[in-house]
């Protein structure tokens, strides 16, 4: 769309081409800015409320910047033993980190085998895995809850970490990546006498670093944000994670919106910071996979 390609009668006869272009620009930026406000206002409101005393919440006029900035909401929820949000934070961090690391190991091993190895049953097994991607999660809720209860994993981090490892997404993701790699390096190593595990660890995995990083971000976010399953399995307050913890927080106080927004900030901030630094990466992974959500 270069300027040399003067369109025939594309612009209004009353205005010059340049003037019309300018007007279009202004309209575009106005629209984009309004949408930006709609996105940002609720987030600013969350931060703003979290620094307000309860007495400032229901005033006649709304103050975006609190008249009196207080950290009381934060100290209050961090020190209340019935809503141990500091503990929940550590629990979430532990669960999300362990889940992510285990998934990376298990899924890259499996993905590599489905991409690169010939073995009887490969197509059938992988086809079966893919078919389950079409199954809605709701049908696994009750039976998996029964299994987890039977195995004594209720109120235990293993109850959220282990079932998550069954997910097919990571295997599929890694297989797609390994298939896109050129085979020559691995074949050369095989001729040199390296075994399959050595080839995988010393050649394939180093080449897969970008894919592994993308998968790590997706899985960490997914695990950190998991709500329903964590709500079912981790019932004791001491072992709760942040997401069901927010629901506990909501139920523990009435109209203490400052406290609740402080809780929301504690849950949202790590993810927002992660997003600011890895924004291109996260957006790219969504654009290319288009799967999760």
């Amino acid at each position, binding site marked *: *769309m270069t300027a040399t390609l003067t369109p025939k009668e594309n612009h209004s006869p009353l205005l010059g081409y340049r003037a019309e272009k300018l007007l279009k620009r202004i309209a575009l930026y106005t*629209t984009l800015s309004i949408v930006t406000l709609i996105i940002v206002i*609720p987030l600013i409101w*969350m931060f703003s409320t979290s620094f307000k005393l309860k007495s400032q919440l229901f005033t006649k006029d709304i103050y975006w910047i609190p008249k009196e900035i207080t950290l009381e909401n934060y100290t209050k929820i961090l020190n209340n033993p019935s809503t141990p949000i500091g503990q929940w934070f550590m629990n979430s961090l532990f669960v999300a980190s362990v889940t992510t690391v285990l998934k990376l190991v298990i899924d890259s091993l499996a993905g590599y085998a489905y991409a690169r190895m010939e073995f009887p049953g490969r197509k059938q097994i992988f086809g079966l895995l893919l078919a389950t991607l079409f199954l809605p999660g709701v049908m*696994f809720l009750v039976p998996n809850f029964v299994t987890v209860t039977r195995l004594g994993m209720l109120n235990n981090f293993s109850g959220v970490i282990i079932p998550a490892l*069954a997910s097919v997404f990571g295997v599929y993701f890694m297989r797609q990546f390994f298939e896109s790699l050129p085979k020559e390096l691995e074949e050369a190593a095989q001729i040199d006498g390296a075994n399959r595990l050595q080839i995988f660890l010393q050649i394939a995995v180093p080449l897969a670093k970008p894919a592994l990083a993308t998968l790590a971000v997706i899985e960490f976010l997914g695990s950190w944000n998991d709500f329903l399953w964590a709500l079912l399995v981790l019932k004791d307050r001491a072992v709760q994670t942040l997401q069901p913890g927010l*629901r506990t927080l909501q139920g523990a106080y009435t109209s203490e919106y400052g406290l609740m927004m402080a809780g929301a900030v504690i849950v949202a901030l790590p993810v927002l910071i992660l997003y600011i630094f890895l924004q291109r990466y996260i957006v790219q992974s969504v654009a290319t996979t288009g799967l999760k*959500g």
Partner: protein
Amino acid sequence: MTAAVTRKHRFSLTPYLFILPHLIFFAVFIGYPFFSGLYISFFQYDVLRPEATVFVGLQNYLDLFKAGSVKFIEFWNSMQVTLTFVIFSVPFLVVIPLVLAVLLNIKVPGRNFFRAVYFAPWVLSCAVISLIWWWIFQSQGGLLNYYLKMLGLETPRWLSTMPYAMISIIIATVWWTMGYNMIIFLAALQDIPTDLYEAAEMDGAGSWARFVHVTLPLLRPVLVFIVITTIIASFNLLGQPMMMTRGAPAQPTGGGATEPVMLRIFTEGFVRPFQGSAAAMSVVVATIMVIFSFANFRIFRQRD
């Protein structure tokens, strides 16, 4: 290729060792429950009291289809709530992202910034966004009614009266997830070769004509994909009503006006001790969803 030949010659256990760790978890938490969910649905089942398990045959299903029973009313009310949410959320979740993607596909300074901002809510959790919007929609101290009042407009009780409770949930959801669809649209738009637009422009097509005759037809596969995945995602609605409205307001006939089917299953199986009945509901819902995706998949395949 020599490597591939030697590979075929002798049977090796190695590949199976590579896939085994994942396959074990897959078998226990995806393969097994596929069948055990069906099995459980034939029982009156309370996981915490295994001794109280009673085989009831198809009773759990019959309850769901026996007109007039409490379970029937509650279940089909919740299905209707879910369907209402799907019908009124999906158009916004498709059209708004499409418009934003088209706008951000124009090469102007700052587009990467806007793209990053629009996508940001998606990285937040359901619990966080529900809590934020729950506070914004409050009648006492809520941000929205404050400004509505200032403008001299009506100030409804958003979270406890209809249709406002449903509208609140839809607004929160659109705000939360529109960036996701936008990114997928944007990726698809960037794949459309610019010379097609240039050719259309030479033929005197204005921007609207270019959108209708170039963009939309080329975007059709992605559009279908997004519509299907968004319908399925909306069908899974749970966290927002759980935290924003708790299913309220109550319906005169039973059930809640914003209680979707996922919340019904949650209540039945995990608040009340009826896992058998919840499993039966899950089977019914899952069957509908699978038929829906399969039908769409077939139509999608046929047309291309």
